């Protein structure tokens, strides 16, 4: 039994090739301040051609970039109860949700799709940082559980691309429970010996880092990505001292043994395919 040979072939009829609005504008690299023409930036997968800084890559673009020929099918996730706490701070949570939906055209901060990558059937989930800071509430947790269950049902590996400020405070304890639920989701894959690869992008913090993000069989990080449990500001306030240079950056985490490899976005697809090839090639006993 091998997930590589044994998965149920997904229907790819609904594969979406969505055209993004042409980026005719100039963008400024937040790292080196260079002005880059929008189309050039898009062609370069939102990596600054001058300094190599990895800008945020939106979920659709991420999926297009990872799947073979940019072809994939979105996974439907179950609907969840909206605003379960009736949460209201200076603004009410429902309003925040509505404007995030208008802005991103996504229901919540996570989307998953299945398709092929290097010929392998694979489920890829991506967090949407533009949706309330990619925070994890019930909808995100449910999406990850669904993605994992689908991967198990169809015998596919799972790749999750993270970008999140942490748990979604407005959903209180229900958001905290998603740390346990997403961890459980990963266990469902592990039980079946299906690979789970975590791709940590800028930023991956709080409750997301302290659950599924740090449980990959293989953990990849994009260069310079902020990956943290506690926020730098909180730590600085607690210890009342300056933080080390490069603190909580991908390179720092690698140095401290927390990620396997740092991969440039341009090489990400290729590296992931290579890993799937390797992981799916278990030896045959006796040979």
């Amino acid at each position, binding site marked *: 039994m091998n997930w590589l040979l044994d998965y149920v072939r997904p229907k790819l009829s609904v594969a979406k090739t969505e055209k993004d609005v042409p980026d005719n504008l100039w963008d400024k690299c937040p790292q080196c301040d260079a002005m880059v023409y929008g189309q050039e930036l898009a062609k370069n997968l939102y990596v600054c051609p001058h300094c190599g800084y990895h800008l945020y890559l939106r979920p659709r673009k991420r999926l297009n970039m990872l799947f073979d020929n940019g072809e994939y099918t979105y996974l439907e996730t179950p609907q969840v109860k909206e605003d379960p706490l009736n949460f209201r*701070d200076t603004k009410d949570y429902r309003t925040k949700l509505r404007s995030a939906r208008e802005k991103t055209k996504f229901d919540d901060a996570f989307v998953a799709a299945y398709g092929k990558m290097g010929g392998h059937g694979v489920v890829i989930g991506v967090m949407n940082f533009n949706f309330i800071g990619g925070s994890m509430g019930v909808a995100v947790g449910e999406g990850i*559980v669904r993605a994992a269950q689908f991967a198990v049902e169809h015998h596919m590996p799972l790749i999750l691309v993270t970008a999140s400020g942490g748990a979604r405070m407005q959903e209180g304890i229900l958001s905290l429970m998603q740390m346990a639920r997403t961890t459980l989701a990963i*266990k469902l894959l592990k039980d079946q010996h299906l690979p789970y690869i975590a791709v940590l992008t800028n930023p991956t913090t709080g409750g997301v880092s302290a659950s599924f993000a740090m449980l990959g069989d293989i953990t990849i990080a994009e260069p310079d990505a902020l990956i943290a449990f*506690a926020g730098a500001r*909180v730590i600085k306030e607690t210890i009342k001292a300056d933080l080390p240079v490069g603190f909580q950056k991908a390179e720092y985490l690698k140095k401290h043994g927390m990620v396997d490899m740092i991969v440039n976005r341009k090489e990400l697809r290729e590296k992931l395919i290579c890993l799937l090839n390797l992981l799916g090639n278990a030896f045959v006993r006796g040979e």
Partner: protein
Amino acid sequence: MADKTIYLDFEEPIYKLDSKIQELKSCCDDKLAKDFNKEIANLEKKTKRLLEETYAKLTPWQKVCVARHANRPHTIDYINALVDNFMPMAGDKLFGDDEAIIGGLGFFKGQSVMILGHEKGHDLESRIRHGFGMAKPEGYRKAKRLMELANHFGLPIISLVDTAGAFPGIEGEERGQAEAIASCIMEGFKLEVPYIAVVIGEGGSGGAIAIASANRILMLEHSIYSVISPEGCASILWRDGAAVKKAATALHLTAQDLYKFGVIDEIIAEPLGGAHRFREETIRRTGDVIWRHLAELKKMSSEELAKNRENKFLAMTRLELK
């Protein structure tokens, strides 16, 4: 007990009555004793009623204060009272020993168990030694190690949650705080033994859930369990540190809220006036409730126990849409 009690802000009327009682008790000579006794009895009745009224309708913020009360029984008190032949165990066998989480083997009502939990300490010296109950990665890795050990020998696990949250600091980040917490949650799901978590005071975010991916999750009546502290939430969402009361209410962090959401299985009633006033009674009650749940879980096979945890957490937070 009253003279040692630390009173919370909202307990001022109770404090006044208690001091009056103390005053009468201390100045009473034999001659006046008869009159005073009557007065004392009256005042005590009044105090009891006041306590009853106050504790029946604690606001969420008041519950936060009660949950953090310095006299509230801590993990070490539960272990001392409930566990015989306690064998404390130390270290993660990787880096060091973090006493923010303590634990070990012992007999609980005759059943050998692994008991572990956050320990905040009770005075300055012990608070420092226990890192104020805020565990570092080595603390969570110790917890994970103790769980693995219990699992290996088929022993039930009792975990007591009482933390403001995981330690936020450079060394924590350096040694993989996020990974340590995630792996500890994961370990809970792997267990083939009964695993019961009890929030005895403060259930602070990731630092709390690390040792609470259990078959049964219980909470003391005036304990809290939250994704973020009211202080943190107030400063981020209200941009106003003083908005803690609003934040405490908005977060729905009381045991009663969590029970309503189906996140916890049972609320353990505290004696009137809170666990910090009646420590022994609280611990005894908690022990009895744990024992009852343990008896139920002991009927399940290893597979059933793991499946029970899986189903519990898969169903959790799936609220009715309407």
